[in-house]
């Protein structure tokens, strides 16, 4: 059972990660508590791989080989022989801590437990196990099978060996790893905050309108998308919850303070593309 990667949670991120690992040649055990979620996940992966064939990025044989490498299971004990387990369950501390404790009991001493968390502390999750040196953050970006970046997050006790092993694994997945310390928002979700926060303030202060700010950011700054288009794409609720999370975790540091416009949009269920209306209509 060498080189088998466990993936916990068959949602969007878990499916993407399972696909990336399988395409890279790893055996994958994809676990979820719901069989229906696993079926949906396999369909999603098949669709993604078919699209990759259409774009000449994959052959039919490679697709079949990759799919054959993914085993799904609702039985947690099937993860026992995995050398690395990547947890991509719901973004709730109690759920993740429970999973980490069970993995700690189940896995061999050498196995690494990685979490795809975007907002929880890797150190806190490590502390739920007897192996905090072999716990690490592995933050993929959505869609995981397309986005090249993976933020690796070292908890206070994460060992250099663990960092090296997961750095190599990330590269074998065809991804670009960057290393971040275990601080709120890690790199991207923290440094990107002013892109949205200042745009919302400029709007709130009446310096310019939504279209105008987006136009300026694209044509004067050279960004591919303006902040309001991007918030609509991400989901205004998701963006607001990341803003709040970083703000709370930094003990109300004013640089991260969310803006009332965000809450108002969420209250009105104007969440962006997914509801057909956000800062723009779709």
């Amino acid at each position, binding site marked *: 059972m060498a080189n088998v990667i466990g993936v916990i949670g068959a949602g969007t991120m878990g499916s993407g990660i399972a696909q990336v690992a399988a395409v890279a040649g790893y055996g994958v055990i994809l676990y979820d508590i719901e069989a229906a979620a696993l079926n949906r996940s396999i369909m999603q992966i098949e669709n993604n791989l078919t699209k990759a064939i259409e774009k000449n990025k994959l052959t039919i044989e490679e697709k079949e080989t990759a799919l054959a490498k993914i085993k799904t299971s609702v039985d947690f004990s099937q993860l026992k022989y995995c050398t690395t387990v990547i947890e991509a369950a719901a973004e709730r501390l109690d759920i993740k801590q429970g999973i980490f404790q069970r993995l700690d009991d189940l896995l061999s001493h050498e196995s690494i437990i990685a979490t795809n968390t975007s907002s929880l502390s890797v150190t806190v999750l490590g502390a739920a196990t007897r192996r905090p040196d072999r716990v690490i953050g592995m933050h993929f970006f959505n869609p995981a099978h397309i986005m090249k970046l993976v933020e690796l997050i070292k908890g206070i006790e994460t060992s250099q060996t663990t960092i090296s092993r997961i750095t190599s694994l990330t590269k074998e997945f065809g991804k670009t790893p960057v290393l971040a310390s275990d*601080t709120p928002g890690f790199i991207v979700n923290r*440094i*990107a905050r002013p*892109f949205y926060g*200042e745009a919302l303030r400029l709007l709130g202060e009446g310096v310019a309108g939504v279209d105008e700010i987006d*136009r*300026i*950011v694209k*044509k*004067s700054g050279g960004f591919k998308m303006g902040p309001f288009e991007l918030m609509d794409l991400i989901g205004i609720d998701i963006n607001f919850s990341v803003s709040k999370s970083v703000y709370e975790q930094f003990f109300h540091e004013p640089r991260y303070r969310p803006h009332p416009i965000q809450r108002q949009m969420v209250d009105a269920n104007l969440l962006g593309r997914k509801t057909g209306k956000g800062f723009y209509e779709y």
Partner: protein
Amino acid sequence: MGMAQKKRKTKTPEKSFLVCGDEPLLKAFCEHYSRADVNMYIWHNKKPEVSKRSNLVYSRSLARIPKNLIAIFELTNTSPAQKIKNLEQIEKHCAKESLIISSSVSSTVTAQSAHVRYPQRIIGFSAFPTLLENDLVELSRGPLTQNDALKAAGEIFFDYHKEVSLIDDRIGMVMPRILCCLINEAMFALQEEVASMGDIDTAMKLGTNYPQGPVEWGEQIGFDQVLAIMEALHADTGEDRYRPAPLLRKLAIGTDLSGRFLA
């Protein structure tokens, strides 16, 4: 409308611009905005290194520069006091009909207008390193800026194939404010050792599709420019969120930290 412009054109036999201000902006402006049909007079305390062109004329003193200019571009961001001095001297020397198109990133057009005798011809613009070359220029007006002055400034940028966007007169304007806050945040992350410079830049380019990483972008802009905007935003709003990162201050002073944070 076109009246004021016509008048200016009859008074000025040849098209001439005057440009002065922060050296990096001065250079970028001369490289990007020099044209065969316009004489560009550079007023600066030392000759900036720009590609030699016959229509670029350097002078240390305003006295050697013609009085009738189509437009004066004042490009000082790093010292509001120096900007006021420049504007005062420009007013003493140049015809009152010349447009003054002044960088209004670290001080508002309103604040600048208070120091000049003919504020009706002052227009603010987003002069900021690395953004000058791009397709859009932000413009702003003071309380007394006349519509025809604004229109004439828009036409000048149109001649350079630039789009313009008129925004409210506010410190930082739009793009420089967002960009400087991003770079300042990257400086906080760097000094807290969240990640290396290289990893911060890689993460922002690959994770959110930014055209450049915030650290490399800050280096290209010049950290003194970024600091000037953050200090101006901080002073203007009194908000802690705009306080400059201590590392940004060090880099702005010119401390050579190259290598220290390299990945």
